[in-house]
């Protein structure tokens, strides 16, 4: 293990070096793209409140810095960023940072849980399909995987609500906790969990479908490898061969893909969080698009790209831990 620390450090270093320019590039590009969109937050506010006076609108714009030339707005934004300031929300009239920090835990909880659930369920189903290759269970699950892979998540969300909240009444259809319900403790936690079941399921099904198919193929490939024959030649039991030799190798591609999907899950949250009224970044993003609140949107963009970069770095390190061939300099 100790001998591999330099290699892991190198992997982490590479990831860090790549991260900074990527993040800056995303911010600048995002800034100009959003600038192209018609209207601004003040237009929307004015529309909602039934018309603001020109003076009032100008004052609002001035307060939010929206009346400056584009380049000086960008310069001001970047200067703020350098100090950890994401700017001011013209719509909610609070700092973007506090707005985002308030929603971040909800999103991380949702996408993190969805990621864990997808990986576990996908690996288990994929392993089952591979073990029963060609059987009816395998074929049935393959068809189901294809189905959930192609169904849009808003449709899945709505169907789940129709079945489990409206018809069966088992689970709440939206929100994140019962109003006036238990706070804290085990009861509070369980209450929270009940609200998470449907959103997490809606978000996960697509990824479970992908992972199950991925793991199925990887397992079938891995168990035909020469080293599995070697393991049999040693007289190992089938369960030991499965765990130590087949699964360990077959799950390597899953770690790569799942890590890359963390970003996708945060993005997929936009639809799911909106449908379920889940207080997360996704719904905030949706609200800020509707409200033309571009500073907030930009902040979310920056934060999500940072999260994706961090996730990718973690995946690289995890891969380095799992696969000794990763991150070896080519001279070796």
């Amino acid at each position, binding site marked *: 293990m100790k001998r591999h620390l330099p290699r892991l450090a190198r992997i982490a270093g590479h990831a860090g070096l790549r991260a900074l320019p990527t993040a800056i590039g995303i911010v600048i590009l995002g800034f100009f793209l959003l600038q192209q969109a018609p209207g601004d937050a003040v237009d929307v506010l004015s529309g909602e409140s039934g018309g603001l006076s020109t003076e009032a609108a100008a004052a609002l714009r001035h307060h939010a810095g929206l009346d400056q030339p584009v380049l000086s707005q960008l310069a001001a934004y970047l200067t703020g960023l350098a100090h950890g300031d994401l700017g001011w929300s013209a719509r909610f009239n609070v700092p973007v940072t506090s707005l985002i920090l308030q929603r971040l835990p909800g999103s991380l909880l949702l996408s993190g849980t969805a990621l864990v659930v997808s990986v576990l369920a996908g690996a288990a189903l994929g392993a089952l399909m591979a073990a029963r290759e060609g059987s009816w269970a395998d074929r049935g699950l393959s068809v189901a995987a294809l189905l959930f892979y192609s169904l849009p998540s808003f449709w899945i969300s709505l169907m789940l609500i129709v079945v489990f909240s409206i018809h069966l009444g088992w689970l709440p259809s939206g929100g994140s906790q019962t109003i006036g319900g238990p706070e804290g403790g085990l009861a509070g936690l369980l209450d929270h969990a009940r609200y998470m079941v449907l959103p997490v399921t809606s978000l996960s099904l697509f990824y479970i479908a992908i992972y199950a198919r991925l793991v199925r193929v990887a397992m079938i490939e891995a168990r035909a*490898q020469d080293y599995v*024959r*070697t393991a049999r030649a*040693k007289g190992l*039991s089938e369960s030991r061969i499965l765990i130590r030799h087949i699964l360990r190798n077959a799950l390597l591609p899953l770690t790569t893909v799942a890590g890359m999907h963390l970003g996708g899950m945060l993005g997929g949250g936009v639809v799911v969080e909106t449908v379920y009224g889940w207080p997360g970044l996704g719904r905030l993003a949706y609200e800020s698009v509707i409200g033309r609140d571009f500073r907030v949107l930009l902040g979310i963009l920056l934060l999500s790209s940072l999260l994706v970069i961090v996730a990718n770095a973690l995946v690289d390190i995890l891969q380095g831990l799992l696969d*000794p061939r990763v991150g070896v300099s080519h001279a070796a």
Partner: protein
Amino acid sequence: MSHPALSIPAFAVPHAITPLLEVQDLQVHFGSKPAVRGISFTVHEGETLALVGESGSGKSMTALSVMGLLPDGGRASGTIRFAGRDTSTLSPAARRALRGGEIGMIFQEPMTSLNPVMTIGAQIVEALRQHQPLSRTAAKARALELIDLVRIPDPKRRFQDYPHQLSGGMRQRVMIAMAVACGPRLLIADEPTTALDVTIQAQVLELLDRLRRDLSMAVLLITHDLGVVGQWADRVAVMYAGRKVEEGDPSALFALPLHPYTQGLLRASPRLDDAQHYTQGPLTEIPGSIASAAGQDGCAFAPRCPQAVAACRAAVPSLRILESGRKVACPLAHQD
């Protein structure tokens, strides 16, 4: 060393009683396609039997049948006895105890036969602890000894290495260490040097020969390299298209091959006896291909045999035992 009797350790049971490995009429099919078509042979305690034949003649499938490790879709029939016990009657657990415990095997492909994500130390330890009640530390100590035994320098360091950090020759040594870890009575070496550089080949073969003496193992040495046979084997069996066509003492067999296929194989072999083959013009390959044996009635070698007559295609030639003890499956072959 070319006399079987001499290689038997003094303390071994006289082999006339029960052979260590006895294969009778082994057949292997993939669907309706035959890979091995009824082969019989024995290996005695402490003896090295070489199984020779060109690619596709069924050597690996024969070896894998003994291990009970045929690839998916392969079906074996016939009898395989190890130390007198019919392996087909053993429970799965007893079969596993045999594999890696009493029979070790090394494979043709050293580059892919080790698990890429486990250290070689862990892979050797795993083989040890499967069959012996060793503590972690004891197993590690034993693994270090084994790494040293197969002449890998700096065992402590190598223990921590992953397969990709080792050369092909080193990986094959690791495979050997794993195969002999539990002191097997039989070692099956399936073309252990085919994938290696020529310079490494001799070293690995020497290692195998030393180990089989030190550990008094019997060896089933599979090869298509006749040079290897002459030097290391006590007895040699020549295979063609899933059948044994000739068997005998290596030096006698090389001096006077009787089966037309063995004769062709010897002519095509560059490394035998003296240096004359290197100087006397190009190698003579056996014309034609082993693929011509598929669906062939009678002698499978007939399409490529320079001496074939009409009768050869009528019936599969039976294996005759000549006075000298040589066995040959060709009615035209005779000892002058």
